[in-house]
């Protein structure tokens, strides 16, 4: 696809990768669909996407922890069959062994390769010093802060001198300041050529992090996960977050990620989509009202730039986009090109009192969330006005994964209760019309 011939040796080559979980009776649940990825020596590449876009799954496929349903994964030209020797991983949750000290945790990868003790200790010492853990050798993970723990995770991965370093949202469990320190430390080491790795592949949902650290960004779309866009980051290190070009790129990526999926020819010809095939994101009514009130007020006055809004609310894309999309679903707001605009209906909601808000919300629910209509219809028809939630969950599971189905149902329960369209008994798992109207 590229006219320029890249001469750097190729580390990983993923072609036509598809990952699907088999479901009984119904169509397979596709997590990744037709993903291609080539990774060469000397680059840092980000897999950027929302949660559920399959980017972590792809990382596990690349590492050999997971076997793709179909497609090929080649490591330096040969098909991989299991965890590859030249790959080391850094985990979002750190994944340190709580019963091993910092030193022992760092050494474990070398021990697995039967590196002699003296060499093992020397290499571990070097890695520990390089990553700024000197003095903590004998500490146990539970004695360390989150940032220090992730440094151990990094040292453990680097000490085996992997050709490829995989990082699965490595900084997302850390607070803002700690994460920033770790990012810059890592980039400094990379620029100085001190990192004993040839390439880095990282998964993130943080747009700025991707633009700050990477040479190339693959933006994923969800349901099923596909590479929607590939961007080269042209800025030299060290990068400045406040640089207008940097801001523009972040803005552009927001735009890409909020762009409504252009109806793919496949979807257009497919059978009419079932009203149940709509996964809902767990967004509460309080947070929806809160965002609308914020948008309506100064300084936004009805229109906000998403990156700026995210920064001021200390939200990540994963928090803000579902919220924006839910408002869009209710026609309370519109997302376009990295901005969010409050609609007249949204403004009306903000100005209303509790009862008026509930009224507007209930109308929106009935108009735009078919599942709610379906539940209400069943309840109205039944002589006892009761219906088991299990049947709706089962029907949902025909169209989405069990987790999504559970989330969707929980969201609908919360919305329906707020709108006073139905009641729900958690213990009996039953919808009812008790105390309604």
């Amino acid at each position, binding site marked *: 696809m590229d006219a320029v011939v890249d001469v750097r040796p190729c580390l990983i080559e993923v072609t036509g990768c598809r990952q699907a979980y088999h479901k009984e009776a119904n169509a397979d649940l596709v997590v990744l669909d037709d993903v291609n990825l080539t990774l060469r020596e000397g680059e840092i590449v980000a897999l950027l996407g929302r949660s559920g876009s399959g980017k972590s799954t792809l990382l596990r496929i690349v590492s050999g922890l997971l076997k793709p349903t179909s497609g090929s994964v080649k490591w330096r030209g040969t098909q991989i069959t299991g965890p590859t020797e030249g*790959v*080391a991983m850094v985990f979002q*949750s750190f*994944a340190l062994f*709580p*019963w091993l000290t910092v030193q022992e945790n760092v050494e474990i990868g070398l021990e*697995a*390769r039967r590196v002699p003790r003296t060499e093992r200790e020397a290499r571990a010492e070097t890695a520990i010093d390089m990553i700024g853990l000197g003095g903590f050798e004998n500490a146990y993970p539970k004695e360390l802060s989150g940032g220090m723990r992730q440094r151990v995770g990094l040292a453990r991965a680097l000490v085996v001198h992997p050709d490829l370093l995989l990082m699965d949202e490595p900084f997302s469990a850390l607070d803002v300041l700690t994460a920033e320190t770790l990012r810059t430390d890592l980039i400094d080491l990379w620029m100085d050529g001190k990192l004993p790795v040839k390439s880095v592949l990282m998964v993130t949902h943080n747009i700025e992090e991707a633009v700050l650290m990477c040479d190339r960004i693959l933006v994923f779309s969800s349901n099923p996960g596909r590479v929607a866009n590939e961007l080269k980051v042209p800025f030299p290190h060290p990068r400045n977050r406040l640089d207008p070009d940097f801001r523009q790129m972040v803005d552009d990526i927001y735009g890409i990620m909020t762009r409504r999926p252009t109806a793919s020819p496949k979807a257009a010809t497919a059978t009419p989509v079932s009203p149940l095939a709509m996964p809902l994101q767990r967004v509460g009514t309080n947070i929806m009202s809160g965002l609308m009130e914020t948008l309506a007020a100064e300084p936004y006055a009805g229109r906000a730039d998403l990156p700026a809004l995210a920064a001021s609310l200390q939200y990540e894309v994963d928090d803000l986009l579902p919220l924006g999309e839910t408002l869009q679903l209710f026609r309370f707001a519109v997302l376009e090109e990295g901005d969010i605009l409050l609609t007249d209906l949204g403004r009306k909601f903000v100005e209303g009192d509790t009862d008026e808000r509930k009224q507007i919300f209930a109308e929106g629910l009935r108009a735009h969330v078919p599942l709610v209509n379906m539940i209400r219809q069943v309840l109205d028809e039944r*002589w006892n006005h009761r219906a088991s939630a299990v049947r709706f969950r089962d029907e949902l599971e025909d169209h989405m994964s069990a987790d999504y189905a559970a989330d969707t149902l929980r969201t609908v329960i919360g919305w329906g209760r707020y709108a006073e369209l139905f009641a729900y008994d958690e213990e*009996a798992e039953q919808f009812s019309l008790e105390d309604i109207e």
Partner: protein
Amino acid sequence: MAAGWRLPNIWDAAAFVCVIGALVAVGHVAQGTMVPIDAPGATQITLDPWNLPEYALRTTMRMFAALAASLLFTFTYGTAAAKSRRAALVLVPVLDVLQSVPILGFLTFTVVFFMNLFPGQVLGLELASIFAIFTSQAWNMAFSMYQSLKTVPADLAEASVSFHLSGWQRFWKLEVPFATPGLVWNTMMSMSGGWFFVVASEAVSVGDNTWKLPGIGSYVALALEQKDILAVAWAILAMLVVILAYDQLLFRPLVAWSAKFRFETTAGSTASDPWVLRLMRRTRLMKFIGELVGNAAAYVGGLRLSFRSRPLAETSKQPSRTVDFLWSAFLLVVVALAVWRVVIFASRALVWSDIGEAVGLGLITLVRVVVLMILATLFWVPIGVWLGLRPEWARRAQPIAQFLAAFPANLLFPPFVLFIVYFHLSPDVWLTPLMILGTQWYILFNVVAGAAAFPGDLKEASANFRISGWLWWRKVIIPGIFPYYVTGAITASGGSWNAAIVAEVASWGDTKLQAHGLGAYIADATDKGDMARVVLGVVVMSTFVVLFNRLLWRPMYAYAQRRLTLA
């Protein structure tokens, strides 16, 4: 619920029949306990398998009577220990020791005591049997209550004070619900332990008289005397049915129900409701009864029973030194008195060499327990890990292991005894496995649970760094399951000590097999009615168990909690 009143449905009819049937059965059993001891059929049993359902019912009723007593004990003793600092000084260590005392050795004497309470009536024997079961159930339940009450979240406690709940209301609205999940789990474990005792305590002999209360335990005892292996098989089958029934009818629903009292606000695993709970929630009659009971309980719990209104907590107030001193002095006097009584009693009947003998035999039993624990560990840990790391297998294995742990192993002794007699094997070696027959499952199911709970990211990390073979066992999985293993091993080793009393002596018709050990020593002394030696044996055994716990398991457990968990 306006739309709720309709004609009863078919489930109501089924439920109605069940309720009536249960009432009739309970009444029948209750009648049986009031007859004189020499009435025909009161303490004689036959090996006719058709009698087994009745025997099984009688045995089960004893279990539940003991369970009721245990609950009463739990609510009083556990609460007292948690509420009063001074009471806790005594109650907690006493409970700790009671847990380690093999009550089975005292069976003869408790029988005499209860028979004297109700001379010439079956009730005395029944109570003695129930007491034996009670002693196997009560302690861990009381401990669970004590620990729950000690860890009631401070904010909820403050909220209940600020809304002026009386002590009684607070107990029922906050403390009991908070303790419920742990208590239900411990009750289930207690039931398992109780079966072992019910089987051992139904057929008792005092001096020359032997009584057999109608029940499965007596049935097995008679089958052994008459060398009827088929009858033994029938008894095992009956037991399987009973355990399966109460597990399905009572404990599955209870555990599912108690989940709503769990304190974690995060939604746990949502296993589907057991069918009985669903039946109870769906049928109108059962639901009505449930609501009736619930409302009555809520009324009683809501009463403003209180001796005095709770004064403001004065954190600065020091506990009174004088009262502390008087209390300590009082305890000292009691302890001195007890020591004096024991010395008097022991010096009359025992000489120093008796103690030496008992300790020596204790060491032999100790060797047995240690060897068994090692063997069981080597055998079950790899299997447990293998099962636990495969979720679909773990799901299937877990209930089976729990079921096997609940099964009274003494019912399985006869085939073993037959085997030893037939091949003329050494009882000293071959009776030994019986001690761990019933308790090894605790190791298995705890290890399965531990491996199943092993964090996914650590699994991935060890795969990513290609840790395998011995290194994987040493650095990854064994530390990972160790806290679970210790929990299981403590239960298993404690149970094995207790089982020694029945496992080191076994008989088949006239053949009597006896191993050398403290368990056999106690059983022997019990047979002869030698009170002094029974007491000595029990004291030595309790000492061994307490030391074993303090010197081995406690430190291991503390280490596991400190080092091997990330929390």
